[in-house]
């Protein structure tokens, strides 16, 4: 049941065909886990908070640095040296005081990931390295909850939605790890990809549209081109191979 204030706050999205008050009510019940409060995390959290997701649990062990501020739009100069999740929580509450923000300043590891994700309805990938992404992917498969993948570099980005047992997971299409470290990026790239991830999350919760499953969307900002590649489940996948096909 939506309050009068909620009906007004979300009136423009409630007007969307296939969204309605029912979709808004679903958002009001949703609990989202966002892994990372950096470039992608800032954007996904911002739009999911604005859309009226009930609980956003954001996990990041980093503190804000000056070099983050070209893209991590939840943080400000005054936040430098502070936990990213704290400045994220503050800004998200400013955007929508009705949303409950659970800010956890912990490093995601194999030992704590299941507990951190807990009873979240889905996982948003806003990480900056592949090993942690694989952990998130595996956890999503084990908990049978969706995983919304995104990654950026320079003017390039990519996104894919993983529905365990129905679509290819990250391990069905990726091998090994890549060399990590400081990566080049301009703020608009996580802006684009984060918005795509948030769009997918909203569609999934509301139950409308076609998700980016079995499709890898690759964004090339320099040529302003989006390309979709078909991907498929790997029956021998280390993470999801044992899950029965529910597609």
């Amino acid at each position: 049941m939506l309050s009068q204030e909620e009906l007004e706050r979300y009136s423009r999205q409630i007007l969307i065909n296939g969204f309605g008050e029912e979709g808004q009510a679903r958002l009001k019940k949703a609990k989202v886990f966002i892994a990372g409060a950096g470039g992608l995390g800032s954007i996904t959290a911002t739009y999911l908070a604005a859309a009226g997701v009930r609980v956003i649990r954001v996990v990041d062990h980093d503190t804000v640095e000056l070099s983050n501020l070209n893209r991590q739009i939840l943080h400000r100069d005054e936040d430098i040296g502070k936990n990213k999740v704290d400045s994220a929580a503050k800004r998200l509450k400013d955007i929508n005081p009705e949303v409950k923000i659970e800010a956890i300043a912990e490093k995601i590891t194999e030992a704590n990931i299941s507990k951190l994700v807990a009873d979240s309805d889905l996982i948003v990938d806003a990480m900056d390295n592949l090993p942690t992404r694989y952990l998130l992917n595996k956890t999503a498969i084990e908990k049978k909850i969706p995983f919304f993948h995104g990654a950026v570099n320079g003017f390039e980005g990519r996104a894919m939605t993983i529905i365990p047992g129905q679509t290819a997971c990250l391990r069905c299409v990726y091998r090994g790890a890549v060399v990590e470290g400081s990566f080049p990026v301009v703020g608009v790239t996580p802006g684009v990809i984060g918005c795509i991830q948030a769009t997918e999350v909203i569609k999934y919760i509301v139950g409308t549209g076609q998700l980016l499953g079995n499709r890898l969307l690759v964004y090339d900002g320099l040529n302003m081109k989006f390309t979709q590649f078909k991907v498929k489940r790997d029956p021998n996948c280390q993470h999801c191979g044992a899950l029965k096909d529910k597609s």
Partner: protein
Amino acid sequence: MSVRIKLHRSLAKIADGRAVLEVNGDTVGQCLEQLAARFPNLKKKLFEKNGALSRILEIYVNGESIYPDELATAVKDGDELDTVMRISGG
């Protein structure tokens, strides 16, 4: 078999700036080897030291993933290969 390879920007830079090239081969591996023969500096970008496909390179044939057996995948006349670099920033 004549196959079109679309090169990622970082690869095209090494291939005299050419974003699209025609090569011949019966498999993806043969096509990439021919590419490396024409542009020797591309070799280390395409392959690992042990000859496996580079861990950060993804190959799509006619818009479809061919993971995990990319190099052995057969190609036919007119096929189109995309080379995409894996990224991991957030």
